[in-house]
């Protein structure tokens, strides 16, 4: 495409730069890099090798921004009717300049650290960070080095725009796939071991973690081959799938669903204990997120105290099934089976949902969010209090919870994460079914109407209080399932397992994944909980545990700015957030009606 437009393109000289833009982007990068360095990320993440002994996640944390800033300053919004600028040396230079300014931030940091006593206020700073920054050399060489690195990476980023789009796609794809394969090392080497591809894994991965150089080359080459030949056909297939309608679409969906289902069933058998543990955690959060998705995504009730229902599920199960005898807490030990307990859990969760919902539901918007936040804490404090201490054990919690005895056939407990995963998966399927059925029913429509405009929904005959309460209760029951499994899995519950952070994380999962979309919510849980880790659960990148919240926050901000509808968006929500673009598209396709003469579409009004 770029070839045909050459006539209208205007080339610009190297000196013709948007200096203000370069300075501002460069400075932002500099500050971000200083922040990253001072947060100790480069050192803490250094243990995770992406390429064995050569390039670690810690290195990546310092380098990626310099590349990205080069890429960003070269980006240009093409405005209709305005001259299109040819990409060339100018963009490479622009990237280099922004990169140098960014790199100068780290140079400045090295100088400051060497000349002033800054260690006191900067608690995360360690001597290793300085080592890492000066890359083994002296202060002077470190200062210079970062200017050079900044320049080179920025120039590389900027020159991405110079490449033909096909080549650019290829390079991006290769880099992304290499990164992905490096991050998923644990999972992939487990799988290759189970399906007899161990020799291949040995070639790709080094013994002490990280990809080998040969591995990088193999993966990059195969990704490039895919990008060059395979990508367009996959894209075509996807478009064909999306163009399907009616029963064919339903069949397509069913096939996709079946494939995902089978993979979900097979995956735990192929991976080891650590990954199974991760999967079980992801499953617990998928269940929670699906429940919250009904409350927030469908009914539009921003519930910040959702952890309350998780806690009720966990504690009820714990108290009912714990095998602790009278000599230790708690006093009352009914020792029921897990499935019997589950019935009581559902009942309890529904009652708690009604109890919390009744006062809260009459409020709207921000007020409601704040009040739910309060109730979330109240429930936790109740479990911690002396008043219920006889049952809940206060700060000591309830321990010795028996696993799930499945009709004498098997016992599911934390020591067998694979079984836990399958148990969670069953409940996730249930939650998916509930979400899917309800969304397209009378109740679901009422929830949507309330989300759109509560007063009008009420004027149209919807009992908003009851309908919202129903959403609250359905969400509460789903969360309590997750709590019940959590208690059986961990074997003990403590008030600290149900801190407010859990609510926040579930909400972030829902928002990042795509509010109102079941697949989105699952994707969100896999990415956030599986890779980064949950509030107390380690993820695939265990090194991230200290920076989890930082990354959650950064991701959330980036999402809100660039893709507020989430990873896999809900159609309706996208429409809502991009109303103008949507209307423009509809207008272009001729779907919007402008003229409005009576009988404009042929037939007269039926009698």
């Amino acid at each position: 495409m770029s070839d045909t437009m050459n006539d209208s393109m205007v080339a610009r000289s190297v000196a013709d730069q948007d200096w203000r833009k370069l300075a501002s982007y460069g400075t932002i990068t500099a500050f971000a890099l200083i922040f990253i360095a001072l947060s100790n990320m480069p050192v803490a993440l250094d243990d995770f090798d992406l390429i064995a002994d050569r390039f670690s996640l810690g290195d990546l944390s310092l380098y990626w921004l310099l590349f990205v800033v080069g890429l960003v300053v070269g980006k240009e919004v093409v405005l209709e009717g305005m001259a299109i600028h040819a990409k060339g040396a100018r963009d490479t230079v622009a990237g280099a300049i922004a990169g140098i300014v960014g790199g100068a931030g780290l140079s400045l940091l090295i100088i400051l650290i060497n000349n002033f006593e800054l260690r006191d206020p900067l608690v995360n700073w360690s001597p290793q960070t300085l080592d890492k920054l000066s890359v083994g050399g002296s202060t002077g060489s470190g200062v210079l080095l970062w200017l050079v690195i900044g320049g080179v990476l920025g120039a590389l980023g900027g020159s991405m725009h110079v490449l033909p789009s096909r080549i650019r796609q290829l390079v991006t794809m290769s880099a992304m796939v290499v990164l992905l394969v490096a991050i998923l090392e644990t999972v992939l080497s487990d799988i290759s071991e189970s399906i007899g591809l161990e020799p291949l894994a040995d070639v790709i991965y080094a013994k002490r973690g990280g990809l080998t150089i040969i591995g990088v080359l193999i993966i990059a080459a195969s990704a490039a081959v895919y990008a060059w030949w395979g990508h367009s056909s996959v894209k075509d297939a996807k478009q064909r799938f999306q163009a399907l309608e009616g029963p064919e679409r339903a069949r397509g969906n069913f096939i996709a669903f079946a494939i995902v289902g089978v993979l979900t069933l097979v995956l735990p058998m192929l991976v080891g204990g650590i990954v199974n543990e991760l999967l079980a955690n992801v499953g617990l959060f998928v269940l929670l997120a699906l429940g919250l998705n009904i409350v927030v995504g469908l009914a539009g009730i921003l519930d910040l105290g959702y952890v309350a229902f998780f806690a009720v599920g966990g504690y009820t199960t714990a108290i009912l099934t714990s095998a602790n005898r009278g000599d230790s807490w708690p006093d009352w030990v009914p020792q029921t089976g897990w499935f019997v307990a589950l019935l009581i859990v559902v009942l309890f969760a529904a009652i708690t949902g009604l109890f919390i919902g009744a006062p809260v539901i009459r409020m709207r918007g921000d007020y409601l969010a704040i009040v739910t936040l309060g109730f979330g804490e109240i429930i936790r404090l109740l479990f911690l209090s002396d008043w219920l201490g006889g049952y809940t054990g206060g700060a000591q919690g309830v321990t010795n919870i028996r696993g799930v005895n499945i009709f004498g056939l098997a016992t599911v407990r934390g020591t067998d994460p694979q079984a836990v995963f399958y148990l969670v998966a069953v409940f996730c399927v249930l939650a998916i079914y509930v979400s899917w059925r309800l969304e397209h029913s009378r109740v679901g429509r009422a929830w949507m109407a309330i989300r759109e405009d509560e007063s009008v929904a009420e004027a149209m005959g919807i009992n908003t209080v009851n309908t919202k309460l129903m959403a609250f209760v359905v969400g509460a029951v789903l969360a309590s399932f997750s709590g019940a499994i959590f208690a059986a899995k961990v074997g003990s519950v403590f008030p600290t397992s149900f801190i407010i952070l859990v609510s926040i994380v579930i909400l972030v999962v829902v928002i990042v994944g795509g509010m109102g979309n079941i697949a989105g919510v699952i994707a969100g849980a896999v990415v956030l909980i599986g890779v980064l880790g949950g509030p107390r659960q380690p993820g695939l990148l265990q090194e991230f545990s200290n920076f989890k919240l930082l990354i959650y926050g950064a991701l959330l901000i980036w999402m809100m700015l660039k893709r507020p509808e989430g990873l896999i968006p809900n159609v309706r929500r996208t429409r809502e957030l991009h109303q103008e673009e949507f209307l423009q598209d509809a207008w272009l396709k001729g779907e919007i009606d402008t003229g409005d003469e009576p009988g404009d579409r042929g037939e007269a009004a039926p009698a």
Partner: protein
Amino acid sequence: MSGERLLTIDNLSVTFGGLHALRDLNFHVDEGEIVSVIGPNGAGKTTFFNMISGMVTPTSGDIIFKGESLLGLDPNQVTARGIARTFQNVRLFANMTILENVMVAQHCRTKQGVMGSLFNTAAFKREEAEIREYGEKVLGFFGSRLVGYRLHQPASVLSYANRRRLEIARSMATKPQVVLLDEPVAGMNPKESEELTGLIGKLRSEWGFTIVMIEHDMGVVRDVSDRVVVLDHGETIAQGTYEEVSTNPLVIEAYLGRPAEEAS
């Protein structure tokens, strides 16, 4: 033409702080009537509608519908008793499809809950089909504009006039006895308002609705109203047929102001 008394409003007043939005209003509608409420801006017309539909609680007085007081009822209960309304500033569920807009309005006439939809019971399926069928029937009232491929488009793509039509369709879908139309032809061109005037007549003759309508377009008011009530500063200043009202000096004064020599 008019049947028995349907809606009676008795000495109704509402004050917002020190402002009398409505003062000692008396009003009634008989079954099968089309009554227009007119008055200058700020006369209290929309407040009057909000009060009937339960969105604003009156300070004093009573609203009686089919022999029962509507005071203290929530808007959804009022709708369930058979009073539906439209809004002056069109308030559709913009991101729901056109069909969903009329389906959701039948909420208070249906009863399938969570369990029905989870187990996909026969009753649930039957009800869904009925809701859908009735929704399409209501949309069909406006010709082919809101049906066909439009059914599954979001309401936000509709043109202004069609949004007004969909709002009327949505109020019809609640299966009301009385429909309150808040400026149904506002913003429409003369041709469109003429057509809608005809449809308002049909709402009574074919669907059997009783209609109370706020309208500024005097042509429409003249063509369809059995009776016109004029509000000014929250009080009824005149009522009667269009001819009676349009020649009433008080009404002319409310709209045009008093001649200068009298005002001094």
